[in-house]
């Protein structure tokens, strides 16, 4: 009976109720959306690389090594020699290695020298491998695979030719013009720094630097692409190596061994640990989002309260009639609380639907344009907590009219007081 009265009463105030419902739904969607973006951007960040047990580079600070090897920010002060790399790759405990060689760029995007191994072993996110939107892996000395953003921004298709520049600036005067690269494939978007990267073979990088010494071309030593193909292109050094181990148990052991090596000073780091350290630094943005979401919650709840309080005045007459009919104040309070519970619950559910539908719709544009991998997901425990918080606040908002009804009941004089 109570629920039928509550339902009918809500129906009769359709306009206000819908407005309240949308206010609650929107603030729920906003709050949970911000929460989801926070959680997933952190997860994405932490999942920039997954499945890699160690990142090895020349002796450097771990954060610095991580920044230049994974995020291509800054540059290495020294490299690992090719023999050092080979020794590591042939270690019994090592399952696979991905060599990375940095230092060149193309119109502001980093060029990374590597092996086709990267398409086989590199994992990001939830153990995802790289996949090709178009084309195929590196198939030639002068082949290049483009990250999704590079291809989209610069409008390259497989088969197009491009020239890489020496150094990492946006405009470089020293271009490897004599040896253009051909696009062999384009990667699907990943939401990782690889989207902004051009991948070439280590030998290709070696080839374009033939006739160079200490970062400048030697006059009169121009080498053509055809000549380059005839030369010994064995790489001389790599910048960093991603290492996968046969057994995770050996990670710490190998890390300590590499870090303590005296002959060739190396730094080996656990990506998860250093990513966590780095996040603590750049997590300021995340905390800013937290503030935004708290503000969203406050505004939403304030709007809901305002609408519910406006309804109190409308409803004094209703309360008076029910009291006169012998409905106890407790029951009237129950009725009003039930109504606001129905309203808030409806709003929260609507908000969840709006949020997930919105995320499902925005997922592809977000990934393609902002490199943000935000997916629809079942509510996390934090989001469920927020839903509970909204429901509680909604119930509290219902408490106000209930108290009003109570006051009316004790102040009596109902017969002529409405």
């Amino acid at each position, binding site marked *: 009976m109570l629920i039928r009265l509550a339902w009918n009463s809500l129906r009769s105030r359709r306009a206000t109720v819908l407005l309240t419902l949308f206010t609650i739904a929107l603030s729920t969607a906003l709050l949970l959306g911000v929460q989801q973006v926070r959680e997933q951007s952190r997860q994405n960040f932490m999942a920039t690389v997954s499945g890699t047990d160690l990142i090895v580079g020349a002796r450097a600070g771990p954060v610095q090594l991580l920044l230049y090897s994974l995020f291509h920010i800054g540059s290495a002060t020294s490299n690992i020699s090719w023999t050092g790399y080979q020794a590591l790759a042939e270690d019994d405990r090592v399952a696979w290695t991905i060599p990375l060689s940095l230092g060149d760029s193309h119109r502001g995007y980093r060029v990374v020298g590597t092996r086709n191994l990267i398409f086989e072993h590199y994992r990001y996110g939830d153990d995802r491998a790289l996949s090709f939107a178009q084309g195929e892996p590196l198939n030639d000395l002068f082949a290049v695979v483009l990250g999704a953003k590079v291809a989209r921004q610069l409008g390259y298709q497989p088969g197009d030719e491009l020239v890489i520049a020496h150094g990492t600036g946006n405009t470089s005067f020293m271009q490897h013009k004599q040896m253009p690269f051909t696009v062999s494939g384009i990667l699907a978007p990943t939401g990782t720094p690889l989207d902004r990267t051009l991948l070439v073979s280590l030998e290709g990088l070696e080839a374009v630097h033939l006739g160079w010494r200490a970062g400048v071309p030697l006059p009169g030593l121009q080498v053509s692409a055809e000549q380059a193909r005839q030369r010994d292109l064995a790489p001389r050094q790599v910048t960093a190596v991603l290492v996968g181990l046969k057994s995770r148990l050996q990670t710490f052991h190998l890390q300590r061994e590499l870090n303590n090596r005296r002959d060739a000073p190396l730094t080996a780091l656990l990506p998860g640990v250093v990513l966590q350290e780095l996040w603590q630094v750049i997590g300021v943005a995340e905390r800013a989002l937290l503030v935004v979401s708290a503000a969203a919650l406050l505004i939403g709840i304030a709007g809901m309260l305002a609408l519910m309080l406006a309804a109190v005045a409308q409803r004094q007459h209703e309360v008076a009639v029910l009291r*006169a009919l012998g409905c106890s*104040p407790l029951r009237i309070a129950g009725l009003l609380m039930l109504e606001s519970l129905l309203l808030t619950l409806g709003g929260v559910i609507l908000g969840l639907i709006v949020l997930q539908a919105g995320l499902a719709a925005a997922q592809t544009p977000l990934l393609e344009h902002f490199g943000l991998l935000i997916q629809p997901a079942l509510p996390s425990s934090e989001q469920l907590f927020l839903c509970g918080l909204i429901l509680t606040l909604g119930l509290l908002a219902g408490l106000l009219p209930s108290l009003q009804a109570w006051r009316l009941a004790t102040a*009596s*004089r109902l017969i*002529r007081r409405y």
Partner: protein
Amino acid sequence: MTPILHAESLSFAWPGQPPLFQLPELILPAGEHLVITGPSGSGKTTLLNVLAGLQAGHSGHLSVAGEALSTLSSRALDRLRADRMGLLFQQFNLLPYLNLIDNVTLPCTLSSVRRDAVSRQGLAPAEAAERLLTRMQLDPALFYRRRVAELSIGQQQRVAAARALIGNPALILADEPTSALDPDNRDRFMALLRDELAACGSSLVMVSHDPALIRGFDHHLDLGALISC
């Protein structure tokens, strides 16, 4: 037979003020009708509220349907009102979001005593409501229409009367139920109300300042006269 209303040296005063009214004795036998008159401010509505158990704080003895009000908890007072009383206001008696039938059957949903009284007549609450509304000369086409607001005030008062009467409560309390009606409608309303009261044997206590209504009541209490005494 216990009188439906029994008051002895009943008085009521707002805190810090002289008594609003003092009744040496008031006895209303079951089934009889009482009209209360008096100038504005003489405490007519307050007396009605006291009788309904909505206004606490009277002194003296007051029992309704054999129950001494001052001994009842507020919960028991609500119960007594739901079970034994029907209330009629000047206007705005109805819940605008329920249809006519749902409005009339509200007392049955709130009180099992009223519900049982209806089923003793062999009727479901909705059937009893339909019968009462028909007797109140309302068009059956209106019964399940949602918007009470589309009814005239005269029609609304008749729906309210049907609601007060459903389940044969012992006492109907009415606060100037005809003040918003023109004389024709007023007389029609009172005639219908009287017929129904006679049919179910309920008592009526009505507040009015309309001298034309005083005729036809068994008892007359003039609060103005009491004060001047």
